């Protein structure tokens, strides 16, 4: 690990990509590429865009889905023998790639990743690892001189001193001691900087829009590629990876592109072309494909605001709908079969009453796509469908099949697959709500001082739905929100939540996830480092299941000690 100190100092500058077309894409042409893509929606969108570009340039590539850090190491080892260029998408930037993957000398690794913090060894690597995502001042990477320095003189003198006799040692005492003290101070400062830097894990700009910018630079952009990019951006918002303001900023930027495609066409252009639009839309889960009533019930924001887990909650929801002027019978039907007049007004009606019922956040700027004469499809719907397809609990679909399903669902010509995804997403939303209900009913969310702790019991019928990172994180967010809404005290707003769920039928392991508290505006997650430290304390083996470390697999026997260690750590 300390080999990092002896890094090639003559560089002193980081191998970052300045010109994405020349330094990244042109290097990939005429070569066989290995694409390692993380199993999340943003990465899938990025790989869809890159695949489209590769198809146009006849580039041969191998695509491998990656589920977690272990998967990355294994797949890299298995497949690196055939290629000299590897592209990692949304995986690996927070681990020291050269040390962990041990690539052969002639292999170059390009990394496109929206996760932060970036491991400093990747940023200051001398050319084998090249980071395509722009590194900005916002990331706060400590400067090179604070992290590495050439200590040749020191070490030589150390070695010299220990070999020679005691006489010489006494003569160089003062200078030697001063140097050693200086070095120790420098090392302490370095450790402190690194600890501060890597304490919180968060997300930066989405990778899919970076890939779209690449296509734009090469004049090979189409509205289809922009749509993929926007789905990736919406995923960051919906899965709470970035805060709302950041989404609004990016959305505003790309709205210009959407408008540009809109201007290129007029009313005579064929209806078969993809039309994109940006407008205020309701933040209700899949409301266009479901009935309005169901979608209101299963959206976390609305469910927690109306306290739908209590007895009076349902009545309050019905009151709300009555006040809007929407007949209950119509609301229970599928949205597409509601009266056309009512359907058009739903958004405005809810907007008018949103303040009174404290539903802020129910409207947001959303991107929609229209193809042919069908109903418009919101980017949020595609995100939900893809997450559901990706984390399909069906035991007959392997992880690779699920990945390919999610990738194909992006293509708008694969309509049946998207429909299936939406059906699965509806089921997932229902199951999540039911699990939250049962957790709250049985008062299984307990406060242990520094955080809230909840367990999905083994007997829970739908626990197999949550044996995957995204679903589990979504459940955790929902549980936290519902618990805080139900509590009278304001204290629970500041507490983060740790949720565990059983993994596998034999009950040997469980999956643990930590989510930040509601009062935190920015979604910074400190559980990556916290879990690692707690595991070190109890000397147990935990396997990280996500790259930011907030989802880990723990043996059931170690679970109690693990939680105790966390309590003492975070107190």
């Amino acid at each position, binding site marked *: 690990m300390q080999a990092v100190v002896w890094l090639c100092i003559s560089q002193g500058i980081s191998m970052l990509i300045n010109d994405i077309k020349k330094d990244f894409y042109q290097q990939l042409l005429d070569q066989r590429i290995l694409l390692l893509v993380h199993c999340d929606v943003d990465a899938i969108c990025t790989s869809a865009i890159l695949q*489209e570009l590769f*198809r*146009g*340039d006849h580039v041969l590539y191998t695509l491998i889905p990656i589920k977690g850090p272990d998967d990355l190491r294994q797949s890299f080892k298995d497949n690196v023998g055939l290629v000299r260029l590897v592209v990692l998408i949304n995986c690996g930037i927070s681990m020291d790639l050269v040390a962990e993957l041990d690539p052969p000398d002639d292999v170059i690794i390009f990394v496109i990743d929206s996760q932060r913090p970036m491991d400093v060894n990747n940023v200051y690597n001398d050319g084998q690892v090249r980071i395509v995502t722009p590194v900005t001042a916002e990331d706060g990477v400590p400067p090179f001189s604070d992290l590495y320095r050439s200590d040749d003189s020191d070490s030589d003198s150390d070695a010299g001193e220990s070999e020679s006799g005691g006489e010489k040692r006494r003569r160089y005492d003062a200078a030697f001691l001063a140097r050693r003290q200086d070095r120790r101070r420098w090392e302490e400062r370095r450790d402190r900087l690194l600890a501060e830097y890597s304490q919180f894990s968060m997300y930066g700009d989405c990778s899919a829009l970076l890939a779209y910018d690449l296509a734009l630079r090469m*004049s*090979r*952009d*189409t509205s289809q590629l922009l749509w993929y990019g926007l789905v990736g951006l919406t995923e960051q918002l919906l899965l709470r990876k970035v805060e709302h303001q950041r989404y609004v900023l990016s959305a505003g930027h790309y709205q210009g592109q959407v408008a540009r495609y809109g201007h*290129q*066409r007029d009313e*005579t*252009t*064929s*209806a*078969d*072309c993809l039309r994109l639009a940006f407008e205020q839309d309701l933040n209700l889960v899949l409301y266009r494909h479901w009935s309005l009533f169901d979608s209101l019930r299963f959206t976390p924001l609305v469910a927690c605001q109306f306290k739908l887990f209590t007895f009076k909650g349902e009545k309050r929801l019905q009151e709300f709908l009555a006040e809007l002027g929407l007949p209950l019978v119509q609301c229970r039907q599928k949205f597409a079969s509601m009266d056309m007049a009512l359907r058009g007004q739903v958004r405005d009606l809810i907007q008018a009453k949103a303040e009174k019922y404290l539903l802020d956040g129910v409207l947001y700027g959303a991107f929609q796509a229209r193809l042919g004469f069908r109903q418009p499809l919101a980017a949020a719907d595609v995100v939900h469908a893809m997450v559901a397809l990706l984390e399909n609990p069906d035991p007959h679909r392997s992880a690779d099949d699920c990945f390919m399903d999610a990738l194909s669902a992006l293509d708008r010509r694969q309509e049946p697959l998207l429909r299936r995804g939406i059906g699965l997403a509806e089921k997932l939303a229902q199951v999540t709500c039911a699990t939250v209900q049962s957790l709250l009913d049985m008062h299984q969310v307990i406060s242990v001082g520094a955080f809230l702790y909840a367990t999905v019991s083994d007997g829970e019928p739908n626990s197999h739905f949550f044996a995957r990172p995204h679903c589990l994180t979504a459940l955790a967010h929902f549980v936290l929100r519902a618990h805080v809404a139900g509590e009278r005290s304001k204290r629970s707003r500041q507490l983060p939540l740790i949720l565990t769920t059983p993994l596998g039928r034999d009950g040997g392991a469980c999956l643990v996830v930590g989510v930040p508290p509601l009062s935190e505006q920015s979604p910074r997650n400190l559980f990556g480092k916290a879990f690692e430290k707690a595991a070190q304390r109890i000397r147990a083996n935990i396997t990280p299941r996500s790259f930011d470390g907030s989802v880990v697999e723990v043996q059931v026997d170690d679970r109690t000690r693990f939680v105790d260690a966390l309590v003492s750590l975070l107190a």
Partner: protein
Amino acid sequence: MISPEEMEFLAEFGVLTIIPNFQQEQLYLIGGDVGPFRPALPVEVPVWLAVNLRQRSKCRIVPPDWMEVDRLQEKKEEEKNSAHFTPMPCEHYMELTQLIMDVAAGDVPRADQIRTIIKDIWDIRVAKLRSSVDAFLKSNSSYAKLDHLTLLELNTVRPFLNHSLDQLYRLKKDTYRSLTMDASRTS
């Protein structure tokens, strides 16, 4: 019988104008030389190359002159009013429309209307073909001449017409033979 895929292949030998967005030197192909390609400057290429480049988002296709709503509308009126077939603007109008609409519907102004008009023209011509075949059979003549029929339309009737004419011949032959046999028996 030529299959539709083969006819589409033959249609791809035509020439289309494209506007590339890349730069490349002249291509020396067996069928002829193509290029050089300069961004935003129109260049004439074979249809197969135009379709391939469009699929790779490397160019924009300029629709051929005849693919315009007003001209096609006139053609349709002409076809409707005439009892015979009128000459078509392009030998492979149906295949070309299909190819261009598949990859570059956004490049063609009023593409939906054009598609409808081309389909109407096709329907009119195929209906005329059917009625002329019918008239040919009823009139018992030994040959018919059709001008300005395109390959695709011809191949819609070719297998059926040949086969049924053979059948008719066989039936007539047997009827003739049995009649003459009866006649020779009674005489």
